[in-house]
């Protein structure tokens, strides 16, 4: 009897070891963990509840915060008196990006000059009136030191090697109804002198680095849209897609998913602008089909997650680019913005939350509070952090560069 029990125990141990070994081999061979093979529902609703959103580096208004599983610690006050917001880009590019070694954070700040009258015609501002001053600043996480990199600058991007790119405006001041243009400048490191990468001024908005290429939205004069370019060096820009914005960079940095002409998604090879895959949203049908995907998504393995007018969309590149899942987000008026995969089944981002706050006379666009969000796509549940008012941005500090 005892011998039989021992044989059973040894058998169980061997089986467990075998299973672990197989899992390990699969993981090493594919670069994926077992959870990635988790099947997401084709359509589902994400629930939302208050709770701890997990660990990471975050912005809480002007405060840089490090979060652990159930606690958070303020690290520094940023901005030198400016707000930590990015009025020129919104979520098109991150407000802050961390270096890959977590030694520094580069971020946008803003000094508001004009008083906005939200219910007045033209918001009470005449053409040419100074509205604000955008700046780029750097916080050294090791020394705890905050440095102004440039006034009259916006849209920073930090490479995996530590290079910093941003738009250096021709003017320090943003003015009402006047295009804000400038040049891309690139510094090889936080201590290097920036070099000009574009000799002609334009509304350049750097987004991220894809290996040695800098992905840039180049605004066109008569549209809020832009063309998507890849720059390899000074004036070495290649058009990747006209009327397009980047959604996510592939994990190896060789490809970018972009929305071109709003309704077409393209997987574009960064080195030569070749279109590797395409998906027309016009072919999608049904009430949950997205009308358009938003920028500020992320790419992990074969999957890409992005916000949309229908909620959180998961695309899959395996077997041809297709919509794998649509997660409705009824708890969030505008979905989950800037979603980033933190593992194979979890996503973090931020969202407008709660009831809208009307403008004084009720004719302007209402305001929403905003909060950090973390979601599990398998259990279809999200936790939501404390809410901040509209101009006190709550954001994860990540980096879309690869």
């Amino acid at each position: 009897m005892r011998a039989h029990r021992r044989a059973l125990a040894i058998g169980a141990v061997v089986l467990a070891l075998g299973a672990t070994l197989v899992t390990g081999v699969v993981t090493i061979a594919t670069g994926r963990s077992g959870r990635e093979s988790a099947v997401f529902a084709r359509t589902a609703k994400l629930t939302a509840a208050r709770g701890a959103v997990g660990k990471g580096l975050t912005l809480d208004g002007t405060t840089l915060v490090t979060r652990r599983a159930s606690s958070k610690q303020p690290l520094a006050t940023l901005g030198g008196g400016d707000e930590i917001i990015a009025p020129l880009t919104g979520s098109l590019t991150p407000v802050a990006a961390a270096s890959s070694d977590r030694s520094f954070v580069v971020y946008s700040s803003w000094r508001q000059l004009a008083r906005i009258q939200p219910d007045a015609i033209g918001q009470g501002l005449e053409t040419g009136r100074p509205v604000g001053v955008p700046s780029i600043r750097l916080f050294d996480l090791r020394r705890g030191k905050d440095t102004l990199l440039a006034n009259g600058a916006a849209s920073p991007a930090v490479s995996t090697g530590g290079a910093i790119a941003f738009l250096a405006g021709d003017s320090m001041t943003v003015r009402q109804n006047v295009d804000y243009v400038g040049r891309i400048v690139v510094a090889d490191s936080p201590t290097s002198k920036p070099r000009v990468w574009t000799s002609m001024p334009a509304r350049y908005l750097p987004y991220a680095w894809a290996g040695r290429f800098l992905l840039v939205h180049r605004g066109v004069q008569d549209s809020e849209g832009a063309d998507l370019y890849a720059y390899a060096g000074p004036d070495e820009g290649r058009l990747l897609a006209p009327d397009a914005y980047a959604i996510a960079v592939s994990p190896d940095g060789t490809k970018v998913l972009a929305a071109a002409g709003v309704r077409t998604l393209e997987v574009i090879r960064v080195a030569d602008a070749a279109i590797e895959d395409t998906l027309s949203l016009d072919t999608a049908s049904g009430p949950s089909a997205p009308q358009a995907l938003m920028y500020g998504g992320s790419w992990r393995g074969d999957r890409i997650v992005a916000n949309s007018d229908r909620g959180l969309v998961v695309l899959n590149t395996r077997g041809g680019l297709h919509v794998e899942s649509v997660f409705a987000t009824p708890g969030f008026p505008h979905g989950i913005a800037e979603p980033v995969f933190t593992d194979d089944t979890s996503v973090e981002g931020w969202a407008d939350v709660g009831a809208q706050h009307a403008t004084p006379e009720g004719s302007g666009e209402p305001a929403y509070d905003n909060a950090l969000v973390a979601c599990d796509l398998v259990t279809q549940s999200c936790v939501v952090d404390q809410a901040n008012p509209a101009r006190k941005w709550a954001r994860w500090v990540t980096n879309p560069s690869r």
Partner: protein
Amino acid sequence: MKALRLLLVTAAALVWTAPASASYFYYHRTSLTNSTFETIDNFGHSTGYNRAGSGSGTDACQHNNWIPLGAYDVLWHDDNYGGSRIQGRVWRLSDYQCSNGVRRTELFVHSEETSGQGQSCGPDGTDYPFCWEGSHDYYSLGCIKLARQPVPSDLRQVDSFVHTYGMATDLWVFS
């Protein structure tokens, strides 16, 4: 002579106090591709309701989404605009700064036509920027778009109205 002078002064005063002829745009924002657009002058004449669209998402305080609620200056109008992305009959709107600080800029009312108010179309299956193919053309990167087809089009109706009753000075976006 004195009576004539009095008459002239009275006539001049009447002209001075009469409202200048002007038009106002009203956009009832209800969906990305199926909202309504109306043009009214300051004497109450109206185009009636035209279908219109705006944006590719419903978060007005992010770029490329539908136009924020509020009152806009119509900065200028051109019947033969020759821009790189939009052409023909266009109206430029004032910038808007949202409650979260994000600025919406380069906003227009327009359609899809050439600077000569024509159509530049190609084979089916491709969306040509200066050709109104159908309902999907109501999507935009933030601007308000009116149909260019069938002829006479909604765009022509609005353009003819403002040329008849007075140039548009304001746009009101409401929900």
